[in-house]
C-alpha cells in the first residue's frame, strides 16, 4: 500500500479512541432549536418565515443571500417562536428560534429526485444549490460555488476528503463506515456536474476499517481511487490533500480550481446523495461529542440548531473539571464561551477538555529551534512572522508571507516555548489583508 503525504506537518496524538469504535446514535430532539442564518462562508441567508409561522422539517426558512450563500432549512417541525440576533463567536447572527412539536412532519418539498442517469450536470448543480449544501469539513463553503469553475479552468480531478486529521474527532470516520455507499453515490453525482473522469478519496492510514469500507464501496467504479495517506496533521488541509493525491500545488493565493481540482468532505458528499436520492436537505449531521470533560463521549446524529447544552446533556453532562468547550477539533476548532449557542451544518465535533488537558504551558522566550518552520505545511517561517507581529512591526512581518498561512496551528502545537504563533500570525494576516483591500 503506497502511503502518500505532504512536506511538513506534525504528529499529533490522535486521541480518537474515545469515540472511534462507537456506532453513531441518534440524538434526542431539543425542545427548541436555534437556527442561525450564517452557517456558511458568504452572505448570510435571509429569513423567509415570520414569528408564529408553522414550519415543517426540511422546509426552507432562510433563503440564500446571494450566489455565495446557501439556503437554510428547518431541522424540526413546529412553530417559529422568534427571530432575533445572537452573538455567536463574537458575530451578530440572525437566529430563527423554533419550538419543536416533536411531530417530525416532513415538508412536502422533501421527495426523492430522479436517478443519476436522468439528471444532467447542471440539473445536479441546481439541486445542490437548492439543498443548501455547504462544505461540512469545517469551512462551510457553499458547494454549488465550488462546482461552478470559471470556463477557462476546467476541472479534471475530484477529491473527497476523508482524512479527518483532527485529533479526537471521528464523525467522518463513522460516516465512512456507516454510509459508504451514500458517499460514493454523492461523489458520482458531483463528478457528473463538473464532468471529471477521476476521483480520489483520501483517508489517513490510522483508519484502516474506513479504507476497507470505502474500497469495497468504490470497487465497482474504476474512476474512483482510494488513497491511503500518512497519519499526519494537517493531512486534511485542502492544499496538502491535493498535493498528496496529485502532486499539484495550489498556487499561493489561488484556489483548487486553478489547478483543476475540487475537494469536498465526505459528509458534504453524502449530503449530495441525501438530497438527490432522498430529497433530504442538510438538516442534520454526525457530531462527535468527546473529550476529557464530557461524561459519556458519543457520536450522534444531531439536528442543525441544537443548543450545545442539549448535546452535553445527551452525553450525561460535563465532568466537574471541564474547562474548555471547543466547536470542532482541538487544532482548528473555536473555543466558545457558553453552551447556549446552537450547532450548525459544520459542527462535526464538540470537544470538551478538562482542566488538565486545557492547560497550555507558560509562554517563554523563543529559542529559535526551528521546529515551527519544519512543521509548517506551507513553508512559512512562523517564528519570524510571529516575532514581528507581536512587536507590531507589520511591515517586517509582511515580508514573511503571513497571508499564505492556512492557520492549521501546527507551529503553535510543536513550539517548545509555547509561543502564540498562529494567533499572532492571524493578527498579521488580518492586518495585511485589510491593508491590501484598502489599496
Amino acid at each position: 500500500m503506497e502511503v502518500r503525504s505532504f512536506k511538513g506537518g506534525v504528529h499529533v496524538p490522535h486521541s480518537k479512541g474515545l469515540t472511534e469504535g462507537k456506532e453513531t446514535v441518534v440524538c434526542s430532539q431539543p425542545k427548541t432549536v436555534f437556527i442561525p442564518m450564517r452557517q456558511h462562508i458568504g452572505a448570510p441567508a435571509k429569513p423567509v418565515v415570520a414569528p408564529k409561522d408553522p414550519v415543517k422539517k426540511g422546509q426552507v426558512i432562510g433563503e440564500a443571500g446571494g450566489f455565495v450563500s446557501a439556503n437554510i432549512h428547518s431541522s424540526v417541525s413546529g412553530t417559529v417562536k422568534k427571530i432575533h440576533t445572537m452573538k455567536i463567536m463574537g458575530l451578530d447572527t440572525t437566529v430563527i428560534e423554533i419550538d419543536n412539536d416533536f411531530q417530525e412532519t416532513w415538508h412536502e418539498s422533501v421527495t426523492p429526485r430522479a436517478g443519476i442517469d436522468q439528471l444532467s450536470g447542471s440539473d445536479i448543480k441546481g439541486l445542490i444549490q437548492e439543498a443548501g449544501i455547504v462544505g461540512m469539513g469545517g469551512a462551510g463553503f457553499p458547494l454549488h460555488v465550488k462546482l461552478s469553475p470559471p470556463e477557462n479552468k476546467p476541472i479534471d480531478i475530484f477529491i473527497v476528503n476523508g482524512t479527518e486529521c483532527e485529533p479526537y474527532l471521528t464523525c467522518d470516520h463513522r460516516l465512512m463506515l456507516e454510509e459508504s455507499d451514500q458517499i460514493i453515490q454523492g461523489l458520482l453525482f458531483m463528478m457528473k456536474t463538473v464532468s471529471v473522469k477521476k476521483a480520489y478519496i483520501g483517508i489517513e492510514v490510522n483508519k484502516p476499517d474506513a479504507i476497507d469500507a470505502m474500497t469495497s464501496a468504490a470497487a465497482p467504479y474504476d474512476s474512483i481511487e482510494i488513497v491511503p495517506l500518512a497519519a499526519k496533521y494537517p493531512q486534511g488541509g485542502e492544499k496538502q490533500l491535493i498535493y498528496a493525491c496529485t502532486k499539484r500545488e495550489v498556487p499561493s493565493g489561488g484556489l483548487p480550481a486553478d489547478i483543476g481540482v475540487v475537494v469536498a468532505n465526505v459528509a458534504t458528499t453524502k449530503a449530495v446523495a441525501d438530497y438527490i436520492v432522498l430529497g433530504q436537505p442538510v438538516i442534520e449531521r454526525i457530531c462527535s461529542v468527546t473529550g476529557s470533560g464530557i461524561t459519556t463521549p458519543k457520536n450522534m446524529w444531531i439536528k442543525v440548531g441544537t443548543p450545545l447544552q442539549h448535546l452535553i446533556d445527551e452525553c450525561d453532562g460535563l465532568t466537574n473539571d471541564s474547562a474548555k468547550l471547543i466547536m470542532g477539533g482541538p487544532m482548528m476548532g473555536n473555543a466558545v464561551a457558553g453552551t447556549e449557542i446552537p450547532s450548525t451544518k459544520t459542527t462535526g465535533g464538540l470537544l470538551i477538555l478538562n482542566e488538565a488537558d486545557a492547560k497550555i504551558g507558560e509562554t517563554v522566550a523563543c529559542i529559535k529551534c526551528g521546529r515551527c518552520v519544519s512543521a509548517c505545511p506551507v513553508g512559512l517561517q512562523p517564528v519570524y512572522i510571529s516575532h514581528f507581529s507581536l512587536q507590531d512591526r507589520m511591515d517586517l512581518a509582511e515580508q514573511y508571507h503571513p497571508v499564505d498561512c492556512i492557520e492549521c496551528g501546527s507551529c503553535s502545537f510543536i513550539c517548545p516555548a509555547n509561543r502564540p504563533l498562529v494567533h499572532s500570525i492571524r493578527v498579521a494576516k488580518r492586518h495585511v489583508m485589510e491593508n491590501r483591500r484598502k489599496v
Partner: protein
Amino acid sequence: MIEFKELVMPIVSMGGLGIAFGGLLAFASQKFEVKNDPRADEINAVLPAANCGGCGYPGCMNYAIAVVDGEEVNKCTVGGPKVAEQVAAIMGVDAVDAGDRKVARVHCNGGVNAVDEYDYQGILSCRAMNLVSGGPKACKNGCLGCGDCQDVCQFGAIKLENGVAEIIAENCTGCQACVKACPKQIITMIPAGQNTVVDCMNNEIGAHVKRNCTVACIACRRCEKACRFDAIHVINNVAVIDYSKCTDCMECWEVCPTGCITANHELKVVAEVIEENCIGCTICAKNCPTECISGELKQVHKVDQTECIGCRICYEKCPKDAIALIPKASPEKLKETA
C-alpha cells in the same frame, strides 16, 4: 635657501588639477543639472518631524513633496494651524482655515463595569483578543482594555484606567492613529472642546445589554427627549450626538439613567446679564430655549439662573456682549450615578 624652482612643479600640478576639477565639476553640474524643488526641503524643515502619517503621507518629507506638488497646506494634524501658516508662507498662499481641532474619543465606559463572558488566555493585545470570538467582553462593542491604541499613540495621549482606554484631550494631536488601531472601532474624532459625549456604541437591545454592562446605552430615549436642540438621537439602538447642534448644556447627561453619557459637570455654566451693557434689545429672551430670560424692551434683562441650562445661545446672540457665562458652582445637581 628656498629653491623657487622646486616650487614650480607642485604649483603647476596642483593648480592644474584644481582648474581641471573645478571646471569639470562646474561643467558637470551644469550639464547634468537636476532640478530639485528647494521648497520641499524648506517645508520639511518646518514640519514637526513626528512622521506620524496623520497627513496621509508616509512621513513628513513625503508630505512636503506633496505640498509642493499642490497638496493642501493644512494637512499636518500634529502641527496644527501654526505649521499650516508656516507652510503656507513658504508656498506663498494663504493658510486655508485649518479647521476646528478634533480629538479622538474612546466611546466606551465599560472596563470594570462590563462583564467578561469567558476567561481569555493568549496574546494581550486588543487585536489578538478580538480575533478570539471578539474578545472576552460580553458587550460586542466594549473596549478590550489592552491598549493597542495607547501603543500606537506617539503623543502619550491615551491612558488606561479601570480597564478602558481614555484620551487625554490636551495631548491629542488628532493624528487618528488610534482610530485605525482599534479593532473594536470605538474611537472616533470629536470637536476638541466637546464636553458632552455618549461613551457607548453598543447597539444591541434587550435585558442582556444591562446585564453585560452597567454603563451601556439602553436606547431609552430619555436624552432625546431632554435635548432642546435636536442634537441627540437614538440611532440604531444607541444614542448619538450631533456635535454641530450640541450646545454642551448637559441636559441629556442629567437624565441618562445608566451613565453612558459623559460630561464634566464642573464646566456647566449659567448666563448672567452684565447690566451696564444691556440695552434691552430682547434678542436673548427671544432665543432662550427655556425662556428663563425676562425683561422689557429697552430694560435691563434678567436671567432666572435656576432655569438656565447653560446652552450659551443668549451669550452668542447678544449684540452688546452683555451676557456673561459663570460657572454653575452650586453642586446641588451633582449626579448620583445609577
